[in-house]
């Protein structure tokens, strides 16, 4: 007999530079959560060095797991399944989590559940309030910019995605132009608050009706504007550059999200991913959806960045469906969200 309530899932996430573990009950309650961040190790290189990330994961993984169990006052005997991010992400980093999860599941003969990282970001919201279908999710992170429609649990339809840089990537590149420390996104956000939208940077909407995004043109516009001003001997305020850039990004994100929410008649709009922590994006979405029927769900900051709780939230649905992975589960750095939902 399979248990149906008080299901504890131990989840692992190592797709980038956070070594994370969490125990989630029934897909919505965080029993314990641990994230060992490596930001300090990568700072000096101005970005994540994949090999260094993998080395940290293998060193910290079991300690992070132990802390997650200790914090929850649970042992492996209380765990019903093991979940892990199988992709997308850095392959070497993912492999540590996958090998660890398989070893845990095998040692205690528990079901194993491979989870898509972006599904995780979306399900972070499920830890706050239940989904209302159909829902629309704006996924914005260092590796992703997507608009996803969900009509039921576990099924994803990507209606728009970036054609070049991810939104977070554009932030990182502009952060370099502004010469602010790594990670760039939060610093640009902070500077932007002190500036004004004075540079008239383009708003890139692509073709009429498209839900796709493009950020490389905007990034080039920032670089050119700064360069031209320098040539003319004009000193642009960093705060204004940051603000102008951010306003352009946010306007397009909010506008397309709003249009999609109307066209698809969704009940709920959620945002997910690292850039969902951006203060201006959160504020602009709240304003745009303030008087609407649609329920806007914005996860708390701690659930926007990479964590394992979100992976456990996704895995609960697979547990209920008894959709388990085999011991041959592999890391899949290019795992596609729609395909993942269909299997």
């Amino acid at each position, binding site marked *: 007999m399979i248990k149906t309530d008080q299901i504890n899932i131990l989840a692992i996430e190592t797709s980038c530079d956070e070594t994370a573990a969490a125990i989630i009950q029934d897909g919505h309650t965080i029993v314990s959560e641990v994230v060992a961040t490596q930001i300090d190790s990568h700072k000096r290189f101005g970005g994540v060095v994949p090999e260094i990330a993998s080395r940290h994961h293998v060193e910290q993984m079991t300690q992070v797991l132990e802390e997650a169990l200790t914090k929850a006052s649970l042992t492996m005997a209380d765990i019903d399944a093991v979940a892990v991010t199988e992709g997308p992400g850095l*392959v070497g980093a993912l492999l540590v989590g996958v090998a660890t999860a398989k*070893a845990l599941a095998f040692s205690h003969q528990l079901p194993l559940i491979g989870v898509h990282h972006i599904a995780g970001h979306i399900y972070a919201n499920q830890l706050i309030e239940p989904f209302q279908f159909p829902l629309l999710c704006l996924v914005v992170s260092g590796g992703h910019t997507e608009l996803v429609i969900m009509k039921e649990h576990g099924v994803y339809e990507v209606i728009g995605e970036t054609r070049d840089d991810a939104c977070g990537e554009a932030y990182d590149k502009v952060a370099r132009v502004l010469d602010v420390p790594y990670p760039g996104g939060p610093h640009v956000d902070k500077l932007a608050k002190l500036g004004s939208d004075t540079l008239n940077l383009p708003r890139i909407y692509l073709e009429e009706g498209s839900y796709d995004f493009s950020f490389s043109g905007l990034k080039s516009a920032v670089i050119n504007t700064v360069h031209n001003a320098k040539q003319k001997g004009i000193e642009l305020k960093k705060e204004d550059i940051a603000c102008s850039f951010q306003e352009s990004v946010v306007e397009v994100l909010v506008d397309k999200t709003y249009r999609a929410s109307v066209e698809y008649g969704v009940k709920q709009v959620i945002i997910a991913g690292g850039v969902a922590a951006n203060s201006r994006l959160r504020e602009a979405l709240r304003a745009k959806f303030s008087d609407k029927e649609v329920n806007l769900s914005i996860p708390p900051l701690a659930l926007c960045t990479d964590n394992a709780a979100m992976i456990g939230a996704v895995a609960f649905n697979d547990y209920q469906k008894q959709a388990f992975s085999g011991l041959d589960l592999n890391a899949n750095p290019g795992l596609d969200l729609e395909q993942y939902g269909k299997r």
Partner: protein
Amino acid sequence: MILAMDTSTDVLSVSLHNNQEIIEEYSSKNKNKHSTRLMPAIDRIMKEAKVTPQDLTKIVVGMGPGSYTGVRIALSTAKTMAWTLNIPVVGVSSLRALSLQASGDDLVCSFLDARRGLVYAGLYDKEGNEVLPEVNIMIDEWLEKLVALNKPVTFVSPDLATFQSLIRERLGERAQFKPKGHHLMRAGLLAEYGKDLAPTDPHLLVPNYLRLVEAEAKWLEKQKADQYDR
């Protein structure tokens, strides 16, 4: 019951040892499949031997050097199993494990191709003591060290073919090579070697990379240069 594993080279190897002898051993040469095949291979030999995870009393793991990713697959698996089953874990250098194919010979050199003229290399005596510390080194430089010893050396390496003629040229008749079939990692020998060794805290067991990450090496070099400039 001891479980041993190594995935640091193109060979995946797992074994079970009952404290008396090797009772199961499985090896497969297929470089890019370690992640998908390690756990099923362990599952398979344990089922064959009717051993459950709770029957395990110790884990021995090859901790590198070798493929960074490969090293981490076996190490993550071994660390996790040892920690969660609350049993001891022993990390053994993968070079040392390789050298066991020729144990008993006066001097055994095991090495792995580390690309761009570099090798990971170790040298052990009859009793298994390290004669020279394991290093990541230019093959020419390593062979000079061996020439200086002026003694017969037995070579064990899955990458022997790449360097055999060079070794013969430098060491002449002092170079001896194990016959074909004795150059691959064997987890059975790894278990035999590690069964009585003192364990490490699973949390603290780390890979034996023998090499810094390139970005880190460059960064350190730059720090040094900057200091010199000042």
